[in-house]
């Protein structure tokens, strides 16, 4: 393979993996609480549309990012009354959330379709960005790309090294025991939904502000579902989300690179790759991941009724 091709592919892989990473990291928090939000797709759409709208009206990217995050957090909280309080079916509730996100973002986002902004620009790191080859791939990315690693560690720390994280995981393993031990399980689960939503909103914001620089209906194109699969791939471990996201981002970017170079492969077959790779990896990793699934989730998944 041509070195330029590999370089372009790897740089593209890192960029494409960023929204997947943040969405999956957020979903990890939610699932650690024994909940599953199948509607991450909808949350990402809300984050993407709101951040784009706010950024283009105000002209301020930080404001756009913050608004997108907040929209995602609040949007995820809508699930609370349903699945935490009422105990409704989580898979169906998540899909209802996806429908809602599709509808709301299409409805309120319509005014912004066809407009574009400069977006989140790459932030070359002095000196490092001039390194031969690697500099182009790793150190000419945008701020949110650089923040992936710190965020992964932050979530890891939150879950594994704080009392809040311990309580949250206890709720995810056995809600009744956690309740008997004095945890406010309802509050903890709502907090997990909110934090997960902030990250999914950020994921959507990165997609519209840093990658697409525009808003179109259904911008996420299934990335929310890949993020849900990614959590299983990462076996519910925050530090494993990044390598997973890079793998899937790599598949997405490969397709873009090949098409840009006019490769003689059907674009439709290339488009299938991310979804097929996701399926294949989930099947191959089933043993290592299943053992780590929070006990509370097994209820949802194995007798989903």
């Amino acid at each position, binding site marked *: 393979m041509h070195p330029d091709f590999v370089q372009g592919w790897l740089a593209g892989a890192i960029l494409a993996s960023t929204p997947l990473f943040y969405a999956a990291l957020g979903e990890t928090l939610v699932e650690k609480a024994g909940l599953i939000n199948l509607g991450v797709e909808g949350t990402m759409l809300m984050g993407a549309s709101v951040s784009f709208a706010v950024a283009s009206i105000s002209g301020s990217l930080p404001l756009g990012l913050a608004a997108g995050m907040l929209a995602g957090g609040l949007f995820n909280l809508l699930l609370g009354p349903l699945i935490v309080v009422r*105990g409704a079916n989580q898979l169906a509730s998540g899909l209802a959330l996806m429908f809602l996100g599709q509808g709301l973002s299409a409805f309120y986002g319509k005014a912004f379709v066809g407009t574009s902004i400069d977006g989140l620009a790459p932030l070359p790191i002095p000196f490092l960005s001039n390194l031969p080859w690697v500099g182009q791939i790793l150190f000419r990315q945008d701020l949110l790309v650089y923040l992936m690693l710190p965020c992964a560690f932050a979530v890891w720390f939150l879950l594994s090294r704080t009392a809040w994280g311990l309580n949250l995981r206890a709720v995810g393993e056995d809600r009744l025991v956690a309740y008997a031990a004095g945890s406010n399980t309802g509050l903890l689960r709502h907090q997990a939904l909110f934090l997960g939503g902030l990250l999914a909103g950020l994921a959507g914001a990165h997609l519209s502000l840093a990658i697409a620089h525009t808003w179109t209906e259904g911008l996420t194109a299934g990335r929310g579902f890949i993020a849900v699969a990614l959590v299983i791939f990462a076996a519910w471990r925050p530090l494993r989300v990044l390598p997973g996201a890079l793998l899937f981002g790599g598949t997405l970017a490969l397709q873009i690179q090949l098409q840009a170079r006019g490769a003689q492969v059907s674009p439709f077959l290339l488009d299938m790759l991310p979804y097929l790779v996701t399926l294949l990896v989930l099947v191959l990793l089933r043993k290592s991941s299943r053992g780590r699934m929070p006990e509370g989730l097994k209820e949802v998944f194995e007798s989903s009724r």
Partner: protein
Amino acid sequence: MVDRKALATISLLVAGALALFSLLLLAAGKNPLDTYSSLFSSTLGNAYGFGEVFVKLIPLLFTALAVAVPARLGLVNVGGEGQLHLGALLAAAAALACGSATPRWLGIPVTMVAGMAGGALWALVPALLRSWGFLNETISTLLLNYVALRVVDFFVYGPMRDPGSANIPQTMGFAPGYLWPSFTGRVHIGLVFALLALALAALVLNRTRWGYEIRAIGGNPIASHRHGLPLERAIVVVLCAGGALAGLAGTGEIMAIQGRLRPHFSADYGYLGFLVAWLASHRPLRILIMGFLVAVIATGGDSLQLDQGLPSATVNILMALLLFVVLAREGKLAS
């Protein structure tokens, strides 16, 4: 049967969802009364619109059953959209391959069998993965939807493309022997098939030993396993049956409405069917009622785009709100 109290609660909840949707419309500076009157007049208010509601109801009944049948076993089939596409693809392939002289009494069953086979085959992968304990069917059916759409694109843009249509990617038109006849306007014989499927599903699920066993296994997998009821086989059977039903939805769309296979011919019928099934708590009679309601809203959504310049996905808000209230109401009952 739907008793009077349940009907009253549902009406109240629907009213609540409509009120909330009005607030969202107001917030965007739209007059909700205009939107509702447009929704109403374009569907129930005139003969053409009323017919269009039934046109949408046909695929929705199939795709809702595709969700409801596996749900009896506790399975969540979100793959209706993909199964619908593969059903249409195989039906189209059969119609194009079998020659143009086929008489109608043979042609229509050929399309139905091919369509059911396509949907069932697409559901077979998630079914096997689940029955072997490899992967939950919710994730796999969802991901395969995205693959199925591209499979159809691949064939319609590639090997099955009509060489005569230079600008539009589509297959050649099907021979008359395969086309599903219409009663009036675009309302076609698929309505009869869908109602028969609904009745058959109700009969099998509620009145046969097998239907009872499925419910027993779904309710308590471990106990059923100890009593020797084979869970693995049941998973494959119900998911493939669901896939076959969704395949019929796609077959009807191309054989009665389109007359040829084009990309993106489905108006999200797979996902809307999922909504209908959950709104109806997976019960056949309620699927008819909720299917009609969702068909009205979806038909109205299309006209909103034309009349008021609103994206047709706007009505997804209303449908999601409806599903929210139904799920919230049934939450404690189901668990």
